[in-house]
């Protein structure tokens, strides 16, 4: 199953780095309704469904669609109406039987084939696969070995074998086909069972004490259904084709039956008189039916798969950005002023996920952006770098890089800046590195792209960089692949890549969240050392107030798409002004196990449910009617010290502070 969307994923920090368009903008949506929406949105799938529906009608009530008896012909007409006429829409066959009605009745034979073969295939394949996958080990190996032997036999051969043992008929042939097809279902079922068995919720069910049969029935089979339905559609097409082939060869349906394969076979005798005409109706029915099943199978598979469009980080173009009314900070390495970012939604009303975010980082300074997931901290960094994921849009604001306005640069111009003037460090170092390319080569990449170094110089520089980020034995490590690096070492490589072109600004998005705590310390030390040596400005984005306390000079606390408080790190930790900052600090456990933790009730609301007034008001113990009705403006107390709260001044006085901490 895919990751949830909208409101459902607000409080897991692991996902904060990957807030995609769909995660933010889409309303809560059940996986099931999403599948249907996508399926009906696909025109080919819709056509296929209509076709299959018509076939089902032709199968269940052929009289509704057919005009005449498919078996009774009028011998007198036999030579007159071979081609279409007003009376006989598709003409008649050589025995004077209405060709149109025969094609309609043919659907029944096709579905009969599917019904027999599929029920045998699923009836044998699914239980075998479930058993094999659940048992695992040696049992699984033996069963799958037998299954693979059967799998390697041609399907038609098995059908012939059954016909030889019993007698030639479509039913018997389909029994053979069903047995052959069961191997496909067994494989699929086993693969799903093996995968599901490792799922945490199966462990949870075992811990609860549920029996194996209950777990299989209630937990594994429901997850088996989607891939099974896909196979169902694809294999149905194949079964119709095999049935028609066998009938064509004369070992399937009876010679008089209105079966499409039989009709194709008979059309050969009429070939001299009417040319290829008689091949077209049954042939067309076959082709369209098989095509419809295959298209339907593909469409179902696509619609239950992960949403690709929301997954890729496509950058949105910047069209009309309203300018900011706040002046930029003098001499800042990066300065963002009152930035709004909006995402369109299905109902047409855009959702604002960043509202008036401002930040500034001075040369050689570290700015920490801290917030819970859903606060918009990662989106702030992405948008400042011109990387607002599509279909999101920066609608207001101004961005300056080292005094240069970069608000509406094109993606091409940005590419010259990113990697050269700005280095970016990501949360998952291993995921950022290409597993198929040697690490050294990946560090050389930005050097070759942004500088005029040749390969040899770039290699030497890359070794220097690895040494600088304290990767032991850098020359040897250059020729290793990413999987040979531990998480901590891979993050050092990530930092080396970010530093390659000696940028003046480093942006680190949760750079230590995926690392162990003892390794985290090493990486933070490294970042601080680099800053000391090079005077780099660093913007570090994290959910961990401890990391902020460790490295940041200045802090911006974000909540629900807004900066709520900004200032010097020491001041914010010593004397937090905003009730949210205060509550966040108090809710962190600190070793002493006697006292109860302070709790912020409720959770961060989704962007579509942001309250009208102060966004923190519903969770704030000091909230008044003013807070609930009126949006607090960001108040600038002095340069770099900001607060967004109606009551911060009253809350600063000692009397209320006592109430606040009680």
């Amino acid at each position: 199953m895919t990751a949830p969307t909208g409101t459902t994923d607000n409080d897991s920090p692991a996902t904060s780095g990957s807030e995609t368009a769909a995660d933010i903008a889409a309303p809560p949506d059940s996986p099931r309704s999403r599948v249907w929406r996508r399926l009906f949105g696909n025109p080919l799938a819709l056509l296929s469904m209509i076709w299959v529906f018509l076939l089902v009608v032709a199968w269940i009530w052929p009289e509704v669609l057919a005009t005449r008896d498919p078996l009774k012909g009028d011998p007198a007409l036999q030579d007159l109406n071979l081609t279409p006429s007003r009376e006989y829409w598709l003409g008649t066959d050589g025995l004077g039987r209405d060709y149109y009605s025969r094609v309609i009745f043919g659907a029944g034979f096709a579905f009969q084939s599917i019904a027999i073969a599929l029920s045998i295939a699923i009836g044998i394949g699914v239980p075998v696969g479930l058993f094999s996958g659940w048992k695992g080990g040696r049992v699984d190996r033996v069963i799958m070995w037998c299954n693979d032997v059967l799998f390697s036999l041609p399907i038609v051969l098995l059908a012939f074998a059954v016909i030889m043992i019993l007698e030639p008929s479509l039913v018997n042939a389909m029994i053979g086909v069903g047995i052959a097809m069961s191997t496909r279902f067994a494989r699929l079922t086993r693969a799903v069972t093996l995968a599901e068995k490792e799922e945490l919720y199966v462990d949870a069910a075992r811990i609860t004490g549920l029996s194996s049969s209950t777990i299989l029935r209630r937990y594994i089979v429901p997850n088996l259904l989607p891939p099974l339905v896909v196979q169902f559609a694809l294999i149905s097409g194949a079964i119709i084709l095999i049935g028609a082939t066998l009938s064509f060869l004369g070992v399937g349906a009876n010679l008089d039956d209105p079966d499409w394969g039989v009709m194709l076979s008979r059309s050969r005798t009429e070939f001299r008189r009417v040319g290829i005409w008689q091949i077209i109706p049954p042939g067309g029915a076959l082709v369209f039916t098989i095509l419809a099943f295959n298209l339907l199978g593909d469409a179902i598979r696509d619609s239950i798969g992960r949403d690709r469009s929301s997954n890729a980080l496509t950058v949105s173009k910047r069209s009309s950005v309203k300018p900011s009314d706040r002046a930029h900070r003098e001499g800042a390495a990066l300065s963002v002023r009152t930035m709004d970012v909006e995402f369109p939604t299905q109902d047409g009303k855009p959702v604002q996920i960043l509202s008036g975010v401002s930040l500034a980082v001075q040369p050689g300074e570290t700015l920490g952006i801290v917030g819970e997931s859903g606060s918009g901290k990662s989106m702030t960094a992405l948008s400042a770098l011109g990387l607002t994921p599509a279909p999101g849009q920066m609608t207001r604001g101004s961005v300056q890089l080292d005094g240069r306005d970069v608000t509406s640069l094109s993606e091409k111009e940005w590419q010259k800046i990113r990697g050269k003037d700005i280095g970016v460090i990501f949360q998952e170092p291993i995921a950022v590195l290409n597993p198929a390319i040697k690490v050294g080569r990946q560090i050389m990449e930005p050097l070759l792209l942004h500088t005029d170094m040749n390969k040899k110089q770039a290699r030497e520089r890359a070794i220097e960089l690895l040494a600088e980020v304290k990767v032991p034995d850098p020359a040897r490590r250059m020729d290793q692949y990413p999987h040979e690096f531990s998480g901590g070492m891979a993050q050092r490589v990530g930092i080396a890549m970010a530093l390659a072109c000696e940028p003046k600004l480093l942006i680190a998005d949760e750079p230590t969240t995926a690392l162990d705590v003892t390794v985290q310390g090493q990486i933070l030390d490294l970042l601080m050392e680099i800053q000391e040596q090079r005077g780099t400005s660093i913007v570090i984005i994290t959910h961990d107030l401890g990391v902020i306390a460790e490295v940041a000079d200045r802090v911006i606390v974000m909540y629900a798409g807004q900066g709520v408080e900004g200032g010097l790190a020491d001041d914010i930790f010593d004397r937090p002004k905003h009730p949210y900052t205060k509550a966040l600090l108090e809710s962190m456990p600190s070793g002493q196990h006697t006292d109860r933790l302070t709790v912020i009730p409720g959770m961060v609301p989704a962007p579509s449910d942001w309250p009208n007034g102060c966004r923190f008001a519903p969770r704030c113990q000091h909230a008044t009617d003013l807070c609930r009705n009126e949006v607090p403006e960001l108040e600038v107390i002095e340069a770099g010290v900001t607060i967004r709260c109606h009551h911060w001044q009253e809350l600063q006085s000692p009397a209320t502070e006592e109430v606040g901490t009680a």
Partner: protein
Amino acid sequence: MSEALISVENLAVNFAGRGRMFGPPPAPVKAVNDVSFSIQPGRTFGLVGESGSGKSTVARAILQLVDIHAGTIRLEGEDVTRVARRDELRFRKRVQAVLQDPFSSLNQVHQTGTIIGDGITRHKGTKGSERDNEVRRLLDEVGLSGDYLARYPYEMSGGQRQRISIARALGVGPKLIIADEATSALDVSIQSQVINLLQDIQKEDGVAFLFIAHDLEVVSHISHDVGVMYLGYLVERGDADSVYEQPAHPYTEMLLSSIPVPNPAEQAVRRQLRKAFIDGEPPSPANLPKGCPFANRCPVAMDICTEEMPDITPAHDGGAVRCHLHTSGPELGGGSVVDFIKSQARRTADAS
């Protein structure tokens, strides 16, 4: 000491290497080695360690989800190392778990009523509206309204899902709940809600917890007793305050000084302490060194540390530590190692 609810003695878990087509099978990975601890009824034992330390494997061993190589686990005096099939239900009724990932530990195809209710039906035979009422009572206990009965996991946030997991565990009426990184994936403000909830439940139902996490601050906040794991070994064990304030193992001290605290002044002190430790990474569990597995990162390692695996020696009051410093070298005798590390660090600083 009163009778322990659960006691784990000399537990060892090996993972067989992946079978190869040719040649001998690879040596097994020793995930858990010689781990012993016990939990009293109604108390919380915290197990802390970094990834690869084997802390989750200990949980899975108790929960019968992995094969146990050696050692004994006793539940209320009864041997539950390998629970026979006919005893499994009785065992499951007493030991429940809340697992880490609040999303994947709930099956997406079922509503809350089924997720929580399945266990109730299994263990108590309650069905229909009676079962629904029981589920509503449990939802109320974990702070959710009865409306959640008909919700699917994807309609809930991480914190809510974790409450459902807790309700599912409680529904069976267990004496021990194993919480394996149960709060690690949650935001700070949600984490504190869940931690308080667990403490409330303990106060009310008298259930014992095995609380497993990588964050020593969280673990020592919630636990009465704490065990610290490193590379499959329990390197230190003792009551939470002692371990937190007077760590007897250098690794515990490293772990403590590595956790950043939201207080710049204190953080500067921790950072200074952290500098004493050697930049380096733990050896691979598939290829453990002969001596102490922490020796290559330990600032106060002695010659004996790379030669011999230290034995368990008493530390704190009733605790234990696995470190040579307490029996040879400075012979700290189970006391805090902090001052010794500081003095050694000063000496190296002076020398250079």
